[in-house]
């Protein structure tokens, strides 16, 4: 497990694997991922398309229909993957809340924001309509929407992008969930709005002790928000470490490649070093290390056997990398 402080973990995932049947074959979206999450901490899961980062959390709360899931996801001691549907529904919203990239897809266009938040509350708690509405106004104010007593009766189309995402966050924290899963929450937003939203999430975390799983493809977002980071590629975990450790001394060639190929605000021109090729297909994925074909240091063993996550602790903090050449570390 990565960097778990003294508190018992809220969430422990062991060897999670998710696959789907498609007309072209079995698509293995997640292939054996493990991680832990403690109260008040943020785990950043970073990966590109096809990495499995979204499916990982979706499968834990039952949002993947028709998928074959193996492994364990212990939330406060109970295995989410073994829960019956009704109990899982109860966990969603109260225990684990989710926000997505596009706020418009989480909100019904024909009902007011206030009504939707109130409905959500009343679905889980025995309060009157008036009480729920009052709570909705309070929540909207809490997430920084100006004049919430007026905006509560507005429809989604009357809100701007940033405000919509705030409204969605309000809905997500309404029942004070222990875990908030944010799946690319700022990807569709302007950079100035993004920094506001990330700050809001940090503030809420400090206030309520909510644990956050931040899923993103943007290392910048990770740098701003995550305490621990899990790097995923083609369904597998490539590297797990505390944020500073990962950004300062990335050990896995994929992480190094990601950091190297990104234009930097402080860099001066020159050629970027891209990672050649593209991610592999998840239908019949490669047997060995999934990154092997694009890795400049691959050896024979890399294509035959997938490397396990091994400890490569640099600065004392837990730091693991799934590579046959763990010494391949140091500065990118």
């Amino acid at each position: 497990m990565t960097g778990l402080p003294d508190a018992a973990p809220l969430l422990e995932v062991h060897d999670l694997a998710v696959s789907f049947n498609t007309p072209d074959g079995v698509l293995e979206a997640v292939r054996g991922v493990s991680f832990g999450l403690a109260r008040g901490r943020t785990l950043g899961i970073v990966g590109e398309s096809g990495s499995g980062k979204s499916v990982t959390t979706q499968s834990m709360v039952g949002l993947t229909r028709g998928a074959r899931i193996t492994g364990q996801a212990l939330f406060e001691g109970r295995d989410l993957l073994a829960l019956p549907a009704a109990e899982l529904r109860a966990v969603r919203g109260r225990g684990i809340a989710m926000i997505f990239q596009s706020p418009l897809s989480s909100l019904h266009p024909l009902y007011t924001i206030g009504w939707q938040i109130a409905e959500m509350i009343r679905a889980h708690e025995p309060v009157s309509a008036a009480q729920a509405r009052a709570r909705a106004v309070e929540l909207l104010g809490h997430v920084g929407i100006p004049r919430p007593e007026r905006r509560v009766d507005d429809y989604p189309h009357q809100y701007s992008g940033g405000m919509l995402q705030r409204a969605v966050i309000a809905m997500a924290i309404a029942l004070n969930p222990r875990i908030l899963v944010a799946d690319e929450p700022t990807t569709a937003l302007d950079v100035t709005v993004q920094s506001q939203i990330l700050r809001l999430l940090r503030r809420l975390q400090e206030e309520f002790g909510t644990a956050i799983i931040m899923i993103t493809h943007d290392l910048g977002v990770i740098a701003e928000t995550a305490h621990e980071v899990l790097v995923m590629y083609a369904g597998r975990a490539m590297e797990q470490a505390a944020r500073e450790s990962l950004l300062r001394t990335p050990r896995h060639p994929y992480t190094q490649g990601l950091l190297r190929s990104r234009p930097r605000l402080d860099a001066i021109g020159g050629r970027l070093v891209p990672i050649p090729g593209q991610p592999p297909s998840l239908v019949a994925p490669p047997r060995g290390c999934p990154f092997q074909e694009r890795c400049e240091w691959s050896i024979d063993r890399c294509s035959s056997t997938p490397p396990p996550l091994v400890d490569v602790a640099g600065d004392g903090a837990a730091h693991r990398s799934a590579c046959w050449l763990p010494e391949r570390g140091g500065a990118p």
Partner: protein
Amino acid sequence: MSAVPRIRGRGPWELAFERLRRDRAAIASVITILFALVVALAAPMLAQLTGHSPIEQFTETGLSPTGIPVGPGREFWLGTDGLGRDVLVRIAYGTRISLLVGVLASGLAVLIGAIVGIAAGWHGGAVDTFLSRFMDVVLSLPFLVLALALAALVGPGLGVSIFLIAFFSWASVGRIVRAEARAIREREYVQAARALGAGSARIMFIEILPVVSATVIVYATLLIPSSIAFEATLSFLGLGVPPPTPTWGNMLTDAMAYYKVAWWLLLFPGAALLGITYAFNVLGDSVRDALDPRHDQTIGAAGGGVG
């Protein structure tokens, strides 16, 4: 979006065709339609086999002494009608009319509708307004009155039937195609074509048409059964192909007088009409599902990663 699969090289049409092949309802309906086609083509052979032509009246063997039609039996497999004509052979010949009118009328309607729709959708402005209003007018015209008027003017017949049906069907196709063309006009690949300097004609034909063709094909398939039913209606009213040529429609008209004593006169033509209409409707639905553009993406919908 997701990782690229090993490049398979199957175009959107091939993919659609494969999906169709796997659809059992589609297969069943295609078989039914092929069967009808065979019957239509083999009608003369059927006439020869039974020794009855579709218009010959067998007053001796085909009618009871009191003049009531004879039921299904050894001589007349599906019975006779009020004039002693062989129902089976007449249904077979009627299939020809139905299929011919259905396909031709539908094809004509879709052709006109697509052209007008694409032109209106692409050009917008005055052209669009004019064509849209024109379509609105056509859609508001009372079909019965016009059909009667036209039939009175030029006399009922096969050509008139096809023309009438196409005339009353093209505007709804046109509207739908227009809406789609308008949406496609804003797509980036059309903007790219404009940036390259492509003219209107080229864009309509090469960029827009292939994309609306999916909708058009589905519509054409679904228009066939309504055209067939339309034709039956016209014949029923005496405005279609004139007797003694059998069509399912005019067979049903004749059945009106005798059905209390001759149930087969209603059942068999009715069943044929229902069967063919149903088959085409099912096929149309399957074609629509097969051509659904959401299927045209690479594996990614179910896989991990963000879009």
